[in-house]
């Protein structure tokens, strides 16, 4: 009997390059992605074509976006592609996939996880108000839907995406009231080191900031105690700079603090995790070849640790070469070594970015008791602090059991980092000491009718 086909989860930059590499070696992978078309979040496409060209949608990355879309289109009859499909569980070498109104159990031989990332956030007062979106969400509205999230928009948080999205809104003709960066201005000096590693990226970021400033956008650094205000919808933002409190009116807010990897499936696949200092998160362990601790399971792209779209393309190809090698097929060792060298260089640049946009670690000590930390179950910082002390908790899954944090419909994607930071501060330890939230199937809500009886119970 022939071996089952390899499964690639995700059709962003990593998944597309992985699939392409497998096809080149004569394999026919199954590629599963939640979106209707390939591209991932970064090269996401509008549901229907509109009047904007690739340059308007993807800016300086238009060429990369078009090449990736083209590469995937060229694979069409040599892969199986299930769009609008969710891998909701992995068990015993099978994937449970919700697709076209049913759940299919699919056996695979070789699994490449390219599940991407979403915004990392730390809760602030008012973050659940209508009109407040993640930076990525604000970008999706603009690029994929041709809509602005407001007519007078503030962007807050930190990371390269903060400046990119603000600039994209400016270019689209939207009034950008302010860009509020939690990173201190002094941290930006690290970008000078980045000039040697990735001059184009650093210079582009500097151009974004300069153009924003030239167009009258208020740029502030080192802001803290961000609070979003409004009755029924966001109407203003308040923040502190040193001892000075400031306020601005606005009707839309994009907020985010860099990105966080989507790791649930790696967890369900049984991969070992380790704490990663740069991402300040537990990530699936992998070696430079993209192999995880589980035989036949490979991981690439931002879902393996935040490194950006260029790295994702390289890592996707590298993961596929590892899969080919493990199946005893020709696997281009020289190309693999070259990919690893390039990835290592990008890794050094990510170190620079992390230094330039440091995680605001003081958040957990400063967050006010009444701030809602979990937007699904509406658990406040006070409830978490009380739970920690009343039950002498020191491990995140026990805090989850007691407080319901991370138990809601997003499964901790948007509160998990915050809960771990709070627990660490309350127990006087580093965030790496409090453990990580365990993942459970289904990794996202799936209609109960689709779930086999034993999984639904």
């Amino acid at each position, binding site marked *: 009997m022939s071996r089952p086909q390899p499964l690639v989860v995700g059709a962003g930059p990593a998944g597309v390059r992985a699939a392409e590499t497998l096809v080149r070696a004569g394999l026919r992978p199954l590629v599963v992605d*939640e979106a*209707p078309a390939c591209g991932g*979040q970064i090269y996401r496409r*509008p*549901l*229907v074509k*509109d*009047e*904007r060209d690739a340059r308007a949608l993807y800016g300086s990355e238009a060429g990369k976006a078009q090449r990736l879309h083209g590469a995937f289109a060229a694979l069409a009859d040599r892969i199986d592609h299930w769009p609008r499909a969710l891998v909701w569980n992995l068990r015993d070498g099978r994937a449970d996939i919700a697709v076209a109104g049913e759940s299919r159990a699919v056996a695979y031989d070789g699994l490449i996880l390219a599940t991407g990332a*979403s*915004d990392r956030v730390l809760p602030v007062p008012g973050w*659940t*108000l*209508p*009109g*407040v*979106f*993640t930076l*990525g*969400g*604000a970008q*999706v*509205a*603009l690029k994929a*839907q*041709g*809509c*602005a*999230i*407001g*007519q007078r928009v503030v962007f807050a948080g930190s990371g390269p995406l903060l400046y990119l999205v603000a600039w994209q809104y400016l270019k*689209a*003709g*939207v009034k950008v009231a302010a860009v509020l960066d939690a990173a201190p201005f002094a941290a930006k000096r690290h970008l000078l080191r980045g000039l040697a590693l990735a001059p184009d990226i650093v210079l582009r970021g500097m151009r974004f900031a300069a153009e924003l400033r030239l167009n009258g956008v208020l740029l502030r650094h080192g802001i803290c105690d961000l609070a979003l205000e409004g009755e*029924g*919808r966001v109407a203003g933002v308040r923040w502190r700079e040193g001892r000075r409190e400031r306020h601005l009116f606005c*009707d*839309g807010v994009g907020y985010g603090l860099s990105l966080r990897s*989507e790791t649930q499936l790696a967890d369900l696949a049984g991969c070992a995790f380790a704490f990663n200092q740069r991402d300040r998160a537990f990530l699936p362990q992998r070696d430079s070849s993209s192999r995880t601790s589980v035989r036949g399971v490979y991981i690439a792209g931002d879902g393996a640790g935040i490194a950006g779209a260029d790295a994702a393309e390289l890592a996707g190809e590298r993961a596929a070469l590892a899969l080919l090698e493990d199946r005893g097929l020709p696997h281009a060792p020289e190309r693999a070594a070259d990919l690893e060298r390039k990835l290592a260089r990008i890794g050094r640049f990510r170190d620079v970015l992390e230094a330039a946009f440091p995680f605001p670690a003081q958040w957990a000590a400063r967050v006010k008791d009444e701030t809602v930390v979990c*937007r*699904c*179950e*509406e658990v406040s910082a006070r409830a978490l602090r009380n739970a920690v002390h009343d039950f002498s908790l020191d491990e995140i899954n026990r805090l989850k059991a007691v407080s319901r944090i991370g138990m*809601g*419909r*997003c499964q901790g*994607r*948007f509160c998990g980092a915050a809960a771990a930071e709070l627990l660490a501060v309350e127990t006087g330890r580093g965030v790496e000491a409090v453990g990580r939230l365990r993942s459970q199937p289904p990794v*996202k*809500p799936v209609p109960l009718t689709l779930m086999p009886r034993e999984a639904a119970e």
Partner: protein
Amino acid sequence: MSLFHRIARSDHAPVRFLLDGVPCEGREGDTLLTAILTHVDKVRVSDFSGAPRAGFCQMGACQDCWVTLADGERVRACTTPLAAGMSVVTGAAA
């Protein structure tokens, strides 16, 4: 008052749907979230405090944009394409 403001695709074919019983028009290529938020400023109320919600991540990760259809079905607005004849209820927990 709407949360979203169109800056592209305004001339695409209209798609008619019902928003809290009121006939509305979206555009071909809209997600349900876009169609709703170009008219009003929430898609549901939260399960516990009843506070208004309008989604957050727009990429199917936060699950904040679930919305109730008139027939009782619940869908995730940011990943559901708008279809003609949909009838949406925004005042409900979803």
